[in-house]
């Protein structure tokens, strides 16, 4: 079993990944952050982000899960669901 993370720990780690992927050291994400807020967050960068998250958290997503994500909150919830399995 993988250790469960608090939502804030998860969000903090995700923020680091977002900063790396979008090459923006000042980027601050919240649960509500979506592609409306980050101009570079398109369909290709979304998958790039997902691959980095998979590596960082040691999990794997399905394409349906990836397609349905609407914002960072969805991502945090999905990561936590997988991490407790």
């Amino acid at each position, binding site marked *: 079993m993988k250790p469960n993370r608090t939502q804030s720990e998860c969000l903090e780690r995700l923020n680091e990944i977002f900063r790396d992927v979008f090459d923006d050291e000042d980027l601050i994400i919240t649960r509500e952050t979506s592609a409306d807020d980050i101009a570079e967050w398109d*369909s*290709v960068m979304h998958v790039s982000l997902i691959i980095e998250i998979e590596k960082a958290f040691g999990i794997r997503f399905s*394409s*349906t899960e990836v397609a349905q994500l609407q914002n960072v909150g969805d991502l945090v919830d999905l990561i936590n669901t997988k991490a407790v399995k």
Partner: protein
Amino acid sequence: MNTPNLDAMLEYVRKRHRRSWRGVEEARAAIPARFDAIAEMFLGWLVKACGESGIPLAVDAFVQFTTEVNLAQARYEADGHYQNSSFAEVYADHYSQDEVMSGYLWGIYLTNFLWAHHAEICVFYRDYFLNRLSPSSQLVEIAPGHGGWGVWALNTLPQACLQGFDISNSSIHIATEVSRAAGYGDRARYAEKNALDLREMAPQCADGVICSFLVEHLEDPRQLFAVIHHLLKPAAVGFITGALTAAQVDHIYEFRYESELMQLCEEHGLRVLSTLSVGPKRLLPNARFLPRSMALIVQKRIADTF
């Protein structure tokens, strides 16, 4: 130009699928003079076939399909090979599953013009293939999938007739619906059949063969080129497309170079008249592979070399 269906689709993408918006803008910019007409044509048939709900249904399917393709490409970048290598596995998991195939086919239907590089193929198809055919051509479409390519041919050629054959029952259903929605149901006939069994058909029966994105789904693509040669009348033309270093869950034959497809044509009595090889502008960071789509216009040779 009045484009109510395109307008509805753009509004839905903008509101519901923000991550896909940039790609849609790229597609419009790729063929600026023709995008609206081509998109409205495809979307009009979709709405007639499925009703108003057809647009959100197909856009959702397009987003799912595009995500699946991008994710498969990322896994391919890491692994260096396609996920599947066996046709039997893909058939069991995909082609025989009506629920999987229905969304898959409507998603692919929109890639025809919503992927910028495929929009370029649309223009190539119209200018270099449809323009070569006579109005009363007898056409065979191998693996029509959603049926859009063949129905477009019927839309352009007023007395043409088309026979389409696909291994998926869902494809037969959707292609039939699209042909009827477009008003050409009486000139299109679809049947469930393995493409490689079409050698049983009468030889030299087709003035034109359409075979879009099938070669990469086969374990041995050579047999398909033999089928195309068998079906075409002497000097008749074919439109063939294939994917190169472009992963998808049901791609099993990995083409790496454009010359591989051209060589398959030449080895099977087909002269290559025109080609177009295109890829997306946006790639995954540090990509080793450029996922390309190649389109070829071929002509059945009447002599050794031409």
